[in-house]
């Protein structure tokens, strides 16, 4: 039986739809999860999708981090379940303190949508094992608040523990150390600003590089079974 991957819909989520499609295209069973639910319906992995949860009011991801479903997601993540936060989902993971640091307004004060080149900086995670270290990939990037910041100690720790997962090749937003994505110590929780779910179909994407993330977690889940 194909692994079941849940995608949470918060009020204001936008790319939930695309994440569900990407999950299906890559061979897993997509499961839609509702923010107000107090269970994750027995899924094997969870994706927190992009969008503007709660309008991105207050701070991106801040209000969604307290959604009822997040209690379960946090518990599952701490128990080792693969969790991927994409864009707004990354912001939610930081606000929920499953990942360190924060995402603030882009250096160039505007929203930016572009095809972004990245370097894979870690393949030791549940979501990147199908990539190769140092590989250059292109993913869709689109956000207004994607600038990764953390204090110096945290950055040192991330670098020292190999927890920077993706780096920008031409830093679009002023992120510290060109960081586009990071993971938790165990490598099961990954957050990134670019949108792998938009890079799974030739018809609508500039590349198919997003597939590797979904294939990675499928490998991870099937190997574990």
């Amino acid at each position, binding site marked *: 039986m194909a692994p079941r991957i849940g995608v949470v819909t918060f*009020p*204001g989520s*936008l*790319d939930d*739809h*695309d994440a569900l*499609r990407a999950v299906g295209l890559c061979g897993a069973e997509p499961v839609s999860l509702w923010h107000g639910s107090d269970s994750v319906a027995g899924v094997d992995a969870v994706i927190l999708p*992009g*969008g*503007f949860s*709660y*309008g*991105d*009011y207050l701070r991106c991801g801040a209000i969604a981090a307290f959604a009822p479903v997040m209690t379960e997601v946090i518990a599952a993540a701490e128990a080792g379940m693969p969790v991927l936060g994409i864009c707004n989902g990354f912001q939610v993971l930081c606000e929920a303190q499953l990942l360190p640091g924060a995402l603030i307004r882009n250096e160039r*004060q*505007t*929203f*930016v*949508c*572009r095809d972004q080149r990245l370097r894979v900086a870690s393949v030791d995670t549940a979501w990147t094992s199908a990539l190769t270290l140092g590989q250059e990939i292109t993913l*869709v990037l*689109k956000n207004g608040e994607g600038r990764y910041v953390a204090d110096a100690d945290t950055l040192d720790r991330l670098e020292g523990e190999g927890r920077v997962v993706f780096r920008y090749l031409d830093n679009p937003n002023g992120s510290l150390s060109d960081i586009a994505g990071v993971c938790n110590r165990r490598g099961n929780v990954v957050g990134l600003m670019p*949108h792998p*779910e*938009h890079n799974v*179909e030739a*018809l*609508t*994407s500039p590349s198919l590089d997003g597939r590797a993330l979904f294939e990675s977690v499928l490998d991870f889940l099937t190997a574990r079974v």
Partner: protein
Amino acid sequence: MADTVKNAARTLDQPQPWAELGLKEDEYLRIRDILGRRPTAAELAMYSVMWSEHCSYKSSKVHLRKFGELTQETPVGKMLAGIGENAGVIDVGQGYAVTFKVESHNHPSYVEPYQGAATGVGGIVRDILAMGARPVAVLDPLRFGPLDAPDTARVLPGVVAGVGGYGNCLGLPNVGGEVVFDPSYAGNPLVNALCVGVLRHEDLHLAKATGAGNLVILYGAATGGDGIGGVSVLASETFDAASDGSASGLGGPAKRPSVQVGDPFMEKLLIECTLEIFAARIVSGIQDLGGAGLSCATSELASAGDGGMHVNLDQVPLRDSTLSPEEILMSESQERMMAVVEPEHVEQFLRICAKWDVLATVIGEVTDGDRLTIDWHGETVVDVPPRTVAHDGPVYQRPYARPARQDRIQADGVDVLPRPVGGEELAATVLRLVASPNLCDKSWVTDQYDRYVRGNSVLAQPEDAGMLRIDPDTGLGVAVSTDGNGRFAYLDPYAGAQLSLAEAYRNVAVSGAQPVAITDCLNFGSPEDPDVMWQFSETVEGLVGGCRELGIPVTGGNVSFYNQTGETAILPTPVVGVLGVIDDVSHRTSVGFRRAGEEVFLLGDTRDELAGSVWADVVHAHLGGRPPVLDLDHERRLAELLVRGAGRGLFSSAHDLADGGLIQALVEASLRHGVGVRVDLGVADPFVALFSESTGRVVVSLPADRVPELIELAEAARVPVRRLGVTGDDVLEVEGQFTLPLSEIRAAWQAPIPAAMAAAGH
């Protein structure tokens, strides 16, 4: 104490502020005549706002009627809803229907660029939603004053951030639009927004209140004091005086519309909630709240139904408890909708709203009679025949006449203007034109828009048309393009309208889709100026004639008058949106050269047509003469060829020729993927060949072994075809004239907008 109907009947001679509300004396007398007494304050508010130019189309109605004489069928199917509904709906096959409409939000965007543009997007999206459709994309045709004007540095970034801020937050891909600069838009930016929606045939909803006893539910945001009087003021003759007055601190009471602030998050919830309500099949009528707020929604729903309506205004949830009944009726608070629901479905309706955290309140019911009555604090403050409010407003036959200056303008042609001679001068002209505001790279703007969300954007800017996949299994899709050329329209409004129509039509065909219908936004100066009214009337005639010849209907649109600063009107600017249908989006064609060594051909004829061109503007600051000659039959055959070719996968690329002529098309096709081209112009005058803006032309590239197929298709379609050259290398070479490295062209092309915005601190 509110002014009740009883009170009005008792105090027939009480003076009323009809003039301040923008009504003319005869209009006020007609209201008294209809009611057989003086109107109450609330009734006066409703009539004044609904009879404003913006809501009643009183100056344009007699002209717009001509659109109704056109076919109500498209080349692929029936029109399921047409002019008069919130938006037109057309059958696109496989059980799907598509709705699309363009609207203006010009004046508010000048006053407060961010919120004006944002609420412009919000408004058109609700129109589409109200038809029963899921909104799936937006496009934003924009026009500003000169790029280097100080006020452009205020207006442009605000408008762009507003369009993006609202549309991105709704999860609607932005797949096209325009960015045009001209001094005539300096005090009158044009912010038009187009939304596309998709529905199944059976989901079509109309705005009508039927079935006595059915309940009227207001849902979405609470009502505040936003934009009170906005509708009548924003589109009335007082706008100029008012904004000037308040800006300089002079003049009487500031009539500047109070600004509306948008809440895109609320609108996103409203969309999802409404779609779930549609899916549950529990609405019998629905209407969005836009201009004129509750006045419009109640009177339109009631007059389209089979009975009357009764509303209790005390039930309306308020953000500001001090609002008077007339203010509640006129408020333009955003993100609200009104539904008519059978009693047994109300509970489920409210449950779905609660799920999405959307406030919903029963505020009234459909009644047996034929009156719209509204109560406040237990007394009746409105008792009117709803049709008289919504549809029987004044209709004006405004005088119009061809301005005397028109002959002078047309006689002032381009033949006397010095032209570049020799390769070096031509190359310098190319670099100058690609770096001019109207031809340069627009990605500073478009990179602020999400074009990927929902995963169905098959084509988006900088393609000639946006294209969306509708059905993932069959590949059915639609393409949309908007175009408008105010310079051509100024030279000849009839021809200008048709040229805009033809360009949008061609842009859709170039993508591989069959053009099937149009929507339009007519942006003009004051209708009280006979010159402007003539431009308007010619424009409508032009569109009607054009659509008739192309065999496509007008599904709806919008008119924006009073776009003028003092006595000076903007260039007449009809913006035309064309919708196309494609059976399988994988057959789409895009604009960029794909690989080296492919054959490049020009379809269509080139004539010496440079009046109104970008060259005349940029190099000579000249606007005079006659616009290019249009052959709509040729456009139709050209489109047929393009669609057929695309269906067979014939083209590696196709790009239409418009502003800037052949050279600009070659530049754009080359820069797209960094694949250059070498062309041979033969014996033609190289300047004319490169810079003329003759219409009906397209550049295509294709593999050498498929050239015979192209020739055959072109012969069958009777479209002139001429080999230009071959793709390759990273230069653009015009044999015997010049060779320019793509890097040099790219640098010049990319610089202007970022440089202007950086200089202003953006």
